[in-house]
């Protein structure tokens, strides 16, 4: 296994650009996915079956079909339909957000429902209304429990953003494949990409474990 450092040096600026786009795609999708997921999670918890139904369908679809298929559908179907032309970055963010929203929705729901019923009853008996009880009693506790599964989801999302290379979004793997296409080499592009992903996911998990420790009560 001979590593050609010269082509790595040559492609370093492109890997840097790719990394930035990977981070951009991930952050944008995490934010949109969380907001969307929150609404969908709340929707799914509705006691009215008819309101909950569409949210259930959404989760079933996006959790039950491959992300790759969703990316292809959004890129070649949805985005041209709306924008009149294809746009890789828009398609990637849309597909990643829609997909992670389904998972985030379930995480929110699980977090809120994991809080003991007695907490709500106690808060209500202290004179809080439902909203206040949610805001000051249930959600702070639920949020703490959501951090580990949310962290998992964010890490999965960073790694899954590599699938956007299939629609020629110039993220990390795109440049890896470009290097491979120019020089027909395997180790240089993919080991580099793997290490960069590792750094990204590892730093994210450090941040999250720090947050977890800060919120710990005992």
């Amino acid at each position, binding site marked *: 296994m001979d590593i050609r450092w010269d082509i790595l040096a*040559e*492609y370093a600026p*492109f890997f840097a650009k790719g990394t930035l786009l990977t981070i*951009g795609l991930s*952050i*944008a999708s995490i*934010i*949109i996915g969380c907001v969307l997921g929150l609404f969908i999670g709340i929707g799914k918890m509705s006691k009215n079956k008819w309101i909950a139904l569409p949210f259930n369908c959404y989760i079933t679809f996006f959790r039950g079909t491959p992300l790759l298929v969703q990316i292809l559908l959004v*890129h*070649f179907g949805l985005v*041209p339909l709306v924008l*009149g*032309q*294809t*746009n*890789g*970055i*828009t398609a990637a*963010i849309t597909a990643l957000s829609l997909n992670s929203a389904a998972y985030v929705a379930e995480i929110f729901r699980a977090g809120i429902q994991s809080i003991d019923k007695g907490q709500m009853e106690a808060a209500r008996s202290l004179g809080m209304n439902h909203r206040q009880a949610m805001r000051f009693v249930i959600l702070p506790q639920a949020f703490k429990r959501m951090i580990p599964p949310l962290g998992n989801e964010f890490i999965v999302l960073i790694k899954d953003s590599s699938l956007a290379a*299939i*629609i*020629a979004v110039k993220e990390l793997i795109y*440049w890896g*494949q*470009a290097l*491979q*296409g*120019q020089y*027909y080499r*395997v180790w240089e592009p993919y080991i580099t990409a793997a290490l960069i992903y590792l750094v990204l996911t590892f730093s994210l998990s450090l941040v999250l474990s720090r947050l977890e420790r800060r919120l710990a009560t005992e």
Partner: protein
Amino acid sequence: MKKFKLLAMAAAVFLFFLSACGTSETSGDSGSGGDGGKKTLRIVTDAAYAPFEYQDKGDVVGFDIDFIKAVAKEAGYEAKVEHVGWDPLFVEIKGKTADAAVSAITINDERKQTYDFSVPYFLSTNKIMIPKDSPIKSAEDLKDKVVAVQNGTTGQEAVEALLGAENKNIKKFKDNNLAIMELKGGGADAVVADNTVIEEYVKNNPKENFVVIEDPVFEKEFYGVMFPKASKLKAEFDKAIKALMENGEYAKIYNDWFKVDPDLTEIKAQQ
């Protein structure tokens, strides 16, 4: 709480920036043919087919790229070439999200049903790339061997005609580079692809001990520029291509990339 707000705002700005990037990158390509400056055409390609089109440190370069830019200029347009990948480029042309595609695309009857093509601009045949010590001597010998091809190419069709369409020994890859990598890695016994591409690879990588063999069973093919059905560009590009072949510009680009002069007789006979 303040920190959160700041974070959210930074994220929003970033998002806006990202989406702005996304649109500015592709805006102006479906241009409105304004009366002022030259209209810029969005040309799509699969830049994984050296020396026709490949990426050199992020730039899409190759014979096809120089050719299409010269043709567009001759026809009075600017050309912006974008790498989208092989299967996607057909989707882009079909959906009219790009003006034309240039990607060593062989003109054949199946494709003509869905797309329009310019007059031919390049002559090519499929050939077989094998390791030097391979027992394969002709296309006939491929029958019980594993063959790597690029999905959706005439190379794939040629191999399917030989081995049968459902043969599990045909490995179809997203681009030709991956097919060659598979051969290098030992996962395939041969690659069938357009002669120029594999001949260039063998020439540029003498240490890897590959050879290219030909077989008359593979028919001659012609590359054309691909347009959406009923595109107005076809007539203008046809004229421009013929003009470049007359005035020697085509020969110059050809010589730049292949170091020999083109033999235009067969291409012209097809026009």
